[in-house]
């Protein structure tokens, strides 16, 4: 497919088998993770404050198993996740509803587009940290600030994607269904819903990614429990292994959610559109969609 894909020459014997495993796709992935661990270790050697992988994972073990960090401070993994997840889910749910309503209105009406598009772009450009600061000053510490920061940061991304979806409904098909008197229920089921679904899932994906960052930021500044607050707790205590350990959890959580659930949903919903793309084009599409925010 690609310009010059090198193919390892088939070699016989045990040496050949090892060579094949090392050069296979799985071998390459394992090698890349080892490379990242090595890089992390090197950074930690360069800067003493920064813990290496062994220290960070050692901390994580204690935190997750609720062991003792020394003295009375115990690992509190589940407690903080239990505090954060409802805030996060509520924020995402509100941003999906609000984003879909705004997206359908702007996408379906030329007047609404002319009126609200610029305001939507402005909201899209506002960084989450501004909402985190504003909500802290407006609502003080607590759940409100975190939930509101999450949905205010995430909903413009849903809206922009839904607008794209509504505008992507093929005009010819729309006209044809009018001409042939297709009922609005069937029109919704066979034309509008399939065209928009992919974009809704793309919107959900970006809402989750953007919302996760917003939740962490808001909890960093205006919460007294939750994963963002906990990482700040270790940061403020100058226990950087705790902070870095939590960062590992943040990344693992969002990456697993994204790759195992959201990307699959999005890919499924976009099958009709992306069938003829090459693998790398599809990957580029996955990375890019939603960030562009037309």
């Amino acid at each position, binding site marked *: 497919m690609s310009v010059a894909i090198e193919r390892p020459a088939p070699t016989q014997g045990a040496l050949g088998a090892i060579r094949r495993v090392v050069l296979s796709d799985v071998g390459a992935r394992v090698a890349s993770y080892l490379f990242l661990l090595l890089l992390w270790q090197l950074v930690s050697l360069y*800067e003493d404050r920064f813990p290496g992988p062994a220290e960070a994972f050692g901390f994580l073990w204690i935190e997750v198993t609720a062991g003792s960090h020394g003295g009375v401070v115990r690992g509190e993994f589940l407690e903080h996740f239990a505090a954060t997840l409802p805030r996060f889910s509520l924020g995402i749910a509100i941003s999906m509803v609000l984003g879909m309503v705004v997206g359908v209105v702007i996408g379906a009406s030329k007047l609404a587009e*002319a009126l609200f598009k610029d305001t939507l772009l402005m909201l899209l450009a506002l960084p989450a940290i501004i909402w985190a600061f504003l909500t802290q000053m407006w609502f003080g510490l607590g759940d409100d600030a975190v939930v509101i920061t999450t949905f205010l940061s995430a909903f413009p991304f849903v809206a922009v994607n839904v607008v794209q979806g509504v505008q992507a409904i093929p005009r010819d098909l729309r006209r044809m269904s009018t001409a042939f008197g297709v009922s609005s229920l069937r029109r919704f089921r066979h034309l509008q819903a399939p065209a928009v679904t992919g974009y809704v899932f793309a919107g959900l994906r970006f809402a989750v990614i953007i919302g996760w960052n917003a939740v962490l930021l808001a909890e*960093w500044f205006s919460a007294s429990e939750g994963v963002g607050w906990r990482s700040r707790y270790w940061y403020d205590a100058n226990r950087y292994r705790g902070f870095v350990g939590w960062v590992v959890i943040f990344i693992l959580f969002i990456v697993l959610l994204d790759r195992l659930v959201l990307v699959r949903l999005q890919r499924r919903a976009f099958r009709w559109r992306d069938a003829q793309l090459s693998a790398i084009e599809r990957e580029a599409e996955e990375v890019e969609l939603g960030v562009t925010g037309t």
Partner: protein
Amino acid sequence: MTSSATVERSPRGDAHLSLGARRRVRGVLGFVVGVGGFLLVWTLLSELVVGEFQLPPPLKIGREMWAIVRSGAFADQFVPTIVRLGYGFGLALLIGFPIGYLMGTSRYWRAFFHDMVMVAGSIPGITYAVMALVVLGISVLGPVISVGLVSMPYVAINVAEGLDSVDRRLVQMSDAFGRNRSAVVRHVLVPSAAPFAFAGVRLSFALAWKVEQLTEVFGSSSGVGFQIRVEFEDFSIPGMLAWVLLFIVFMILLERFVLVRLERYLFRWRLEEQA
């Protein structure tokens, strides 16, 4: 794209305005009415419902913005921010281009970098910001490296995609005329991939400046992000909003008028090809 506009132009002998011009007028009108309405609602909210302290009216923020520009603070703080952004994009191109090239040409390296590139986009910005603070302390390097790391995957995946779409016949022809590998790389592959690298930068632009500003909030002693932090610590909502709005307007203008034009210029060979 452009052909539809010329076909539909004045079908009923409408000699006053072409379709494009009408669309532009509608855009400007929509902007004025839409943003004007938004500001009006905002003003009413702040005067009648919430209170001026919690939600300062737009006029007050406008005055604040004007004061920032007039006092010269705007230039003082924007120059370091933009310079860091530039260095960050340089870093992204420097690392991202070779990675994308390897991904586009070799199956092994594509599998090697696949996870890093696909995952990097979903890493929350706050981790870049605070990790930079832990590793580097309060330093000008923090924002540069954050921007570089945020943009790099977009550059890499775009370069790989660009190489994927290189005209195969050009490569075959070079082979047929006995050009060696390095000549093909220099004259066919790299020139085809270069605009894609730039497209990667433009795509990640909005993401990159947000992360840069966040890094400045956490660990910098100058720049727009640092000013936002200072205003936050003074509990000055108008000051905070003034800085961030100036920043957004500036960045959107930069994207529209510099980056998009530059991209169109770099990709002009493709447009000619299509026409």
